[in-house]
């Protein structure tokens, strides 16, 4: 599969604030299926916040407030993710997220990757084993860790830890993957591997990535959005200088 015209995420009239400080101000955006969309802009302009609006992770932050609507096409149907009937755990399995700093849980490599399956109530060991292996292979990590699956995941290198976190998000077969500056804490070689990995995931997922590194954005992204003053001020390469939809 390649980029299609199908809209995966449709966000309208997004307003967001932490306490008194307003972060997003009437933001509109459409993100297409099987594309890599990069969100760029200066620090503290709400790039990471925008990602957490797509999996409702912001709701765990005290003092945060949001208005607007986000629809995501999941399992072939359009879902209003802020509708009361939308199950949070299900949403977050379908819309995976990887953070800036690798955050393996203090447990073995295997248990880390199996964790989301366990949370989903899957207990069939053979099925878990297969899914863990597939996810680690997808994340280009299997060959490096297949003989040490029971080791503490925190003993892996930074780059390996980040690939582990990506594998952990992939194990429940998400349709959307949100990456919050996934390479900012890594060296050049590790960054290159992760970039290749992200490109390879485009076939199975729709990817939204926050990045500070413009060279990286140009290497990876199909489209990039610049955030400023709580809105999208630039949208390359299609509609330049849009204010809002």
């Amino acid at each position: 599969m390649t980029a299609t015209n199908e809209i995966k995420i449709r966000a309208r009239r997004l307003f967001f604030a932490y306490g008194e400080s307003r972060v997003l101000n009437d933001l509109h955006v459409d993100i297409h299926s099987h594309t890599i969309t990069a969100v760029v802009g200066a620090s503290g302009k709400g790039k990471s916040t925008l990602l957490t609006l797509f999996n409702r992770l912001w709701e765990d932050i005290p003092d945060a407030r949001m208005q607007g609507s986000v629809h995501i096409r999941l399992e072939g149907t359009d879902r209003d993710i802020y509708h009361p009937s939308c199950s949070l755990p299900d949403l977050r399995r379908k819309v995976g997220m990887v953070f800036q700093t690798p955050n393996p849980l203090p447990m073995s490599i295997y248990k880390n990757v199996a964790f989301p399956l366990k949370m989903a109530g899957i207990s069939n060991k053979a099925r878990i084993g297969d899914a863990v292996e597939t996810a680690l292979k997808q994340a280009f990590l299997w060959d490096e860790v297949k003989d040490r699956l029971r080791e503490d995941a925190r003993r892996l290198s930074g780059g390996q830890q980040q690939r582990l976190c990506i594998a952990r998000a992939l194990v429940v077969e998400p349709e959307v993957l949100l990456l919050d500056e996934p390479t900012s804490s890594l060296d050049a070689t590790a960054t290159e591997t992760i970039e290749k990995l992200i490109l390879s995931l485009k076939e199975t997922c729709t990817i939204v990535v926050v990045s500070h590194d413009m060279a990286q954005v140009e290497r990876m992204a199909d489209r990039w959005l610049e955030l400023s003053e709580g809105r999208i001020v630039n949208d390359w390469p299609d509609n330049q200088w849009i204010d809002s939809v």
Partner: protein
Amino acid sequence: MKARCCDKLVTAWAWLSGLVLTASVATLLGFLLTKGAGTLSPALFFGDTVPLDALLLKRQVFEGIFPATVGTLLLVGLAVGMAVPVGIATGIYMAEFAAPRTKAVFGLFFDILAGIPSILVGLFGFSAAIFLHHHFSGQITPCLLISALSLAFLVLPYLIRTTQTTLENLPRHVRMTAPALGASKLQTIFYVLLPQSLSGIVSGIILSIGRCAEDTAVIMLTGVVATAGIPASLLSGYEALPFYIYTVSAQYADQAELMRGYGAAIVLLAVCALLFALTAFIRHRLADHLLYGAR
């Protein structure tokens, strides 16, 4: 120059304080050991009763501290056993579920509870026993169960506060990890937050064990007796090491009896050390099981 001088002064002060503290503990232990080590023998525990008969509860021990040791172990086990589930659950509620106002009000009450002198908790337990005796069953008198309940109340605030603060101090990225992977709130608490807070919670439990093992004021009013033997049930009187040490040092008849008091103090320390070690062992096994368990 002034700043450097200040730095050195603070460092010296810190060193000195640490040294004084360590030296005090060492002196205390040394004093107890030199005084009491001579009395450590089966006779200290069992008097003139045959040890095997005493251990199998065939004959009551009158002259030894065996019943007091068993009493203390039972008391600590019961009190901590009752307080831990309630304390941890309340700590979780405070850290993860309580609204800010509720949290402030409850927090104030827990702090007041932590500041109540133990003799008052003892009086409360005593009054409760009298009340129950009059209104429910004539069989209820000050006893092991009442003592354990009172002690549980005494240590609850430590358990609640340590659990709460450890959970609240977990960094945000740790809190976000599991929800981002589709874990529900309860799953996040049980699979990630609690295992990561284990050492904080365990230090609260250790503090509680120490408090229950040493407390004399509460148990004096709620059921400890000088010679009760091994308690037959939760509703019987019992003996306890701190109370034994207290009575011996207050009214010893001869030097040998006083020495037995020192012996009992060493045994009390050893009982505490044993319980701490057991707690640490359980913590270790639990952490292994929760975090690194089989594939």
